[in-house]
Every structure is written in C-alpha cells, then in structure tokens.
C-alpha cells in the first residue's frame, strides 16, 4: 500500500486518502477527540449517539431518509478517548453523503425526543452488559486495573445514574467544547480520485469550525492488583479476565509487547494460551490475550470462557502459562514466526476499503509517520527477541494482574 495523500486543513482537520478503484465504493474512518475521557460520565456516549439523529435544519427521520436513500451509511461510536466516525458511499453519492455528515457534525439538533430514545438505548445496553458474563467481567476488571481518579476507570457509556440525568443542554455544551475540527482526523479509501479529494472533500470539511485542540489524557498509574467475583448463578458458562495497566501506543516498547501478546494468546488458534487451555486440555472454547494501547496508556488482558466445573482448573492453567513466560520464555523460533505473522497480516488485512481507511487513520492518530506502512516490516524485523520476552513476562505477570471471574461461580474455589 502506497503512502496516503495527506491534507491538513486551515481549521486543523487532517484528511487522508488511499486511492483504490478495485471496488466501486468509498469507505471512511475518522475520529474526533470527544470520547468519554473528556467529560462527566455518560455525556460523551449520549453526544455521539445523538450526532446523526437530526440537525438544526433536518429532523432525525429526514437525516436517516436522506442517508439511506443514497444507500450510504454513517455512524458515530463513542470510545474512551475519541468518537469513531465511519461511513460508506460511492463516488456518485459522495458529495451528498458528505453534506449530511458535515451538517450532522456541525449542527446537531439534540432534539428531546431523540434524547429519550438514546436514554432507552444506553440504559438497555448497560443492563445487557450486567447480564453478560464476559462484558461484566471485563468492565469490572478495568475498574480494578485503572485507579478511580483516571478517566479510563469508568465505563465509557456511563452508568444508570448518569443515563437518567443527562439533558439536551449537556450534550449541546459537550459538543460545542469538543467537536471542533482541531484534532479531527478522517481517512478515506476507495474509488475516489486525489483531485476530488483535494477539492470536494476538503471543501466539505473546511466548513467546520476549528474549536479548541484536545487536551492530552493523563498517563494512568497502575492500581494495586485486586480480585473480584461476580455471581450470576443462572448462567451456563463462566468467564474470567486477568489484566493490568500496560503501555501507550507510542511507547518504545509497544511493538515488543504487541508481538508478545500475539504469541501468548492470538497467533493461529489463540497462541500458547489456546494451545494449552483449548487444544490440550479442552477446557474452553476461547482463551486469548489482548492489548489495548491508546494515546495515554493501555492495558493487556487474558480472557477465557469455561464451564464452571472447569473454572478452577482453567484459572490455574492460565496462571501457569503466564508464569511460564518467565520460566520458559518465547523461543527464537516463536519470535521469528510472530514476526512473519505481523508482516504478512498487515498485507492481508489491507484487502478492503474500511480496513485501509482504518489503518491510515490510526497511523495519523498515533503520529506514526506517513511512511509507517513502508517502514513497518523493518520495524518488526528489527525487534529484539529479548525485549519481546521481557515485555511478555512483565505485562502478563500473574502477580501484577487483577483477576475477575463471573457466572455460576458459587462454590468454586478460585486461587487467583
């Protein structure tokens, strides 16, 4: 994939393009730094959900009719740091799709009727999470991993109390403070000529006010490891999650930890974890590791879903695999396989417009340099195997991790 065309507009927005005419469609992925970390509980979630639900000029129904009449699609999804913006259209519908998108970004209505619908959706989603073993365990774990004073501690959706209280004026104020073009990034991929991108697309985004550049989120300090059990006696399967604070995406050790995460519980059918817990012991349908690295910091997790009678054995097996990262670190052959996996998977991942747009967006978002994709194979090849072993052992240390189990766990003796 060649370097993306990059435009920085006068209002601060950055636009990117990967031109690719192999499919007659355009996808875009973007972000605005208006995530949960920037407001009181729940407000970012409500604002993002209301963004495409009507403008000062057009009702929610008219906005969705106009979008869907074009067979275009638009979405805004709240996250911890930023709101993800995404869309799909064709070259024929690009102009009108952008008109709707920019109108929605610049002048959302926050109509009371839509707010009440969103209140129902958010409340429902929070309740569904409470009844979902995996989501509930992960949410609780993140509360243990990040200190209460840090924005990453709380649920980005807020809680039942915040969902009951948020008013249109709150969303309006949050939008005015955080939805400026400064800090906004939107990446396009697909059937779009550079000339049109520099002309029509840039002109559409130029209409947005600059706003204030986003403040950085403070770096999270790790909490003291803690454990929790969430009893859900009516469920068939138990879930458990272990994890700790890890690194920001821009940290020098990120690449090493990413490779360690892949080797530990992702490559093939979930790496070492999958081989032991699923393949050898047959204890779980899934058992994997994950790394979430954001601008300010991140966390790494180990997750598994198991029959309650196997829970104690699975916890012990996963704990043993975490300890094994110290006693039997990744071999040179494992690291070599991981490196070829990373290089090959980059190529394979970039087969569709949404993934291409997401990749060039992320490169800009994390400041990795426009030539990052070109440099990436060398970055990976240059990784010191020792640093992969060291970060793996450090960040998947069972004693430095918090642990949470959820589900029908009554009577199960757990030794975290």
């Amino acid at each position, binding site marked *: *994939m060649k370097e993306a065309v990059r435009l920085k507009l006068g209002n601060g927005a950055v636009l990117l393009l990967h031109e690719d005419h*192999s*499919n*007659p*469609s355009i996808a875009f992925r973007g972000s605005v730094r208006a995530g949960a970390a920037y407001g009181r509980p729940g407000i970012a979630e409500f604002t993002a959900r209301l963004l495409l639900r009507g403008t000062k000029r057009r009702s*929610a*129904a008219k906005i*969705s009719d106009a979008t*869907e*009449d*074009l*067979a275009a*699609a*638009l*979405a805004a999804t709240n996250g911890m740091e930023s709101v993800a913006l*995404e869309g*799909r259209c064709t070259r024929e519908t690009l102009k009108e799709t952008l008109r709707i998108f920019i109108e929605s970004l610049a002048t959302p209505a926050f109509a009371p009727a839509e707010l*009440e*619908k969103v209140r*129902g*959706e958010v*409340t429902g989603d929070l*309740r*569904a999470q*409470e*009844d*979902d*073993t995996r989501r509930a365990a992960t949410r609780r774990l993140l509360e243990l991993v990040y200190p209460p004073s840090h924005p990453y501690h709380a649920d980005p959706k807020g809680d039942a109390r915040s969902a009951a209280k948020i008013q249109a004026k709150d969303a309006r104020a949050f939008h005015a403070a955080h939805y400026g073009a400064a800090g906004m990034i939107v990446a396009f991929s697909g059937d779009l000529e550079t000339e049109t991108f520099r002309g029509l697309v840039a002109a559409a985004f130029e209409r947005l006010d600059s706003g204030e550049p986003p403040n950085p989120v403070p770096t999270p300090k790790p909490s003291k490891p803690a454990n929790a059990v969430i009893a*859900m*006696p*009516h469920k*068939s*399967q138990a879930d458990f999650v272990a994890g700790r604070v890890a690194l920001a995406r821009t940290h020098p050790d990120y690449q090493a930890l990413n490779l360690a995460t892949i080797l530990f519980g992702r*490559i*093939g*059918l979930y790496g070492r974890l*999958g081989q032991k817990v*699923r*393949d050898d012991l*047959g*204890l*779980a*349908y899934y058992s994997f590791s994950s790394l979430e690295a954001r601008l300010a910091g991140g966390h790494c997790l180990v997750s598994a879903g198991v*029959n309650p009678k*196997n829970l104690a054995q699975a916890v012990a097996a996963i704990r043993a695999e975490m300890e094994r990262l110290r006693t039997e670190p990744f071999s040179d052959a494992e690291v070599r*396989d991981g490196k*070829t*996996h*990373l*290089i*090959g*998977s*980059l*190529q*394979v991942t*970039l*087969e*569709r*417009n*949404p993934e291409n747009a997401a990749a060039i967006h992320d490169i800009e978002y994390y400041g990795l340099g426009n030539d990052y994709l070109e440099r990436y194979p060398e970055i990976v090849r240059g990784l010191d195997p020792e640093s992969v072993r060291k970060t793996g052992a450090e960040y998947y240390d069972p004693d430095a991790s918090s642990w949470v189990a959820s589900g029908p766990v009554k009577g199960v003796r757990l030794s975290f």
Partner: protein
Amino acid sequence: METITRTLDNGLTVLLRPMPEAPAVSVWVGYKVGSRNERPGITGATHWVEHMLFKGGGKLKKGDIDSIVGRLGGKFNGFTDTDFTIYFETLPPGDLDTGLMIEAERMRNAAFDPQESEAERGVIISEREGSENSPKYLLSEEMWHLAFHVHPYHWPVVGWKIDLERITRNDLYTYYLQHYAPNNAVLVLAGKFEPEDAMRRVESYFGLFRPETQPPPLAVTEPAQEGERRGEVRRPGTQDHVMIGYHVPALAHADTAPLLVLQAVLGGWRGLSLFGGGFVPRSNRLYRGLVDKKLATDVSAQHRMQADPGLFTIEATVREGVDPAKVETAALEEVEGLRRKPPTKEEMARAARQLRVWHAYDLDGPTAQGLLYTWFEVAASHTLLDDLIDRCQKVTTADVRRVADAYFDETNRTVCTFLAQEGGS
C-alpha cells in the same frame, strides 16, 4: 467481474474470481453438509467435525494449520451452518499453495485422533454453554425448535447438549468420510492469482481424490403450519426480547427477491454478508414503528435464505418498562400491515438502491467475495448471487404485496418471547 467455473473429473466444482490488484488471495472450500444432514442422536456432529478439521492429518500435524497460516500472517476460520460447512484461508498472494494444501488435506486426510476428539468434547460443550448465556440465543433456539416439527432445522447447529455428551469419535469419523468428498464440495479462489496457473495447482492438489457416493438428498419436508405457535423462555435476565418467525421458501425460490425487498422496507438493509459494519438502519417501518415509538431499543428483520424452506424473522429488544405484548403487537402491525399498506414508491426505490449499492460494499475484498460465492454455491448456486440483485431491481410493489399475503399470515407464524426474571444482574 466474471466468475470462471470449472469442474474436476472427480466432481469438485471450482469457482475463480481473479482480482489482479488485490493484496491477498482467499481460498474457500464449502461442503454441502450442515446440521440439516444430521439425525437425532448425533445433533451437532457437523459442527464438531468442523472443529476436528483444524487438528491435522495427512501432511499436517496437530497445530500446523494455526502455525502455518499464523506465520504467514493469514486469516483462517471455519463456519458450520444448517446447510453447509465452510473453511477459508486468506493469505499473501504468493501463498496460494499453502491454502490449497491445507484444504486438500482437510478434504480427505483428517486424523480424528481419539484423544483429540475427546478433548474437543469439552470445547464444544463450552461453546454451547457460552451461547446459552445469551438470552437472544436461547430465544432463537426456542423459535426454530417450535417452528419446525419435522425438518432438521428443528435442532440447533451446535447440537443438543445430551447428544454432545454421547457422540463418539466413530460417529464423527463416519460422518466425515461420508460428506467430505470432492463431489460434495466447492472450491472458490478470490484475489490475486492467474486463473490457468491456479487451475493447474488445484488439479494437482485435488485431482486425485475419488468421488464418494453421496447419501440421497434430504427427503424431509416440513408440513405447512396450520396455526400460530407460541413459546416463552423465562430465565433470570435484564431485558425482554421478542422474536417472530414466518415460514418462507428456500433461497433458490423465485420469491427470494421480493422477500429481500420486503426485508429492506421492513427492517432496512445492511448487505448480505457478515461485513455490514456497525451501521444502524433507521429509515424503515419497524424502526419507525417500534424504536421511534419508544417500545423497543432495537429491531431487525431477516430473510434467512436457507437451502430448504426456512424462516423470515423479526427480532426486537423490549425497552425497559414496556410490556413485551405491546412490542409484539406493534411489530405485527408493521409486518402484517404490509398486506394492507404496501410499500410506497419511495420505499421501493430506496430498497432497490440499497440492495444494489450494498452488493458492491459486500464484494469489497477477496475474503468477502470468497464467502459470498461459496455460501451461494453450496446453498443454491453462485449464479443466483449475481442474478438475485438484478432480480431485486425488477421487484414491483405488487410482488411485495403478494409475498406478504402469501407468507405473513397468522397461521404461518411463530412468536417467542424471552421474559427476563428477577436475578439477572
């Protein structure tokens, strides 16, 4: 883009979708065996066999598929459905042989090591139990169980737990030998390759396999439903859900096109494939009638498009504090209201455009193309995929009204409700 179709002497159907600019090649093999081919006592066998086919055999040792594809940075997986089982690897373009080798070994040489079969029992049961944790899964299982009395769509793809506890390694291996043969499979290549060169490679990997005598086609037909069926699942939970199903014809039936247009009018359209993304359609009758009216927090409609006559379903999550009966009534008003209030010209135009444009989104990339062409070939025919979207463009309001009249009738419907009980959080 043209699909190149070939058939090997042993009956293996090969579909080629060359994409010279693609950064990858996707190798798909679909088998015409799904849970519809099982019998009571071995429900879930198709899905279990799928799991066993990642455990080596022939040139592949246990773990080799994961490590070979993983090392190359490829994507791979397998899916079992009511009508088919599908496997794929998406790889860097130079690694076509790797995908072909894996699929060839999988077709005839799987090991079915007894110890591995036994270890997999726990994994399979764990997968089922994970699904049981979800109210929507429980509701769906109840729906199919109730709507089909005779046809194998009666049981879930993952199988009944009691069968999963008893199925033996020999049950699985016999099932594998019977169904995994070139004359019961389709191989689809999509992405960067040269067609003639690819065919030579396909021939070298699969050409020597012998065809197997296939069991006679499934001769079970679900009798017509003669009255509404109702089911309830009461379990601790935090949200109520409503699901409504109507019997509709198989994918290959001429009414599929009007039913898809009807689906778009009722519940919006987000493409045929798994790659629709997180976009929520709101310009449709169900959203306006249920979510806009604050009865439900989400609602969807789907024609399941199966090899045998299946279901058209409507699913809604009941908003907190709302009586599920009100959601059911509102959904029925919209669905069966189509018979009295057929789609407007604007609704028809929107539906037709969505079906056409989303088809382009659906075909973005080798993996997506491989999935769709394999699915359609094993469930009906790949030519139907291209024809279907064209046929949808010609569907008239009268066609939609006719299929609504034919299928959206009280006597043909099944209604299931998940009623969340105390103790769900």
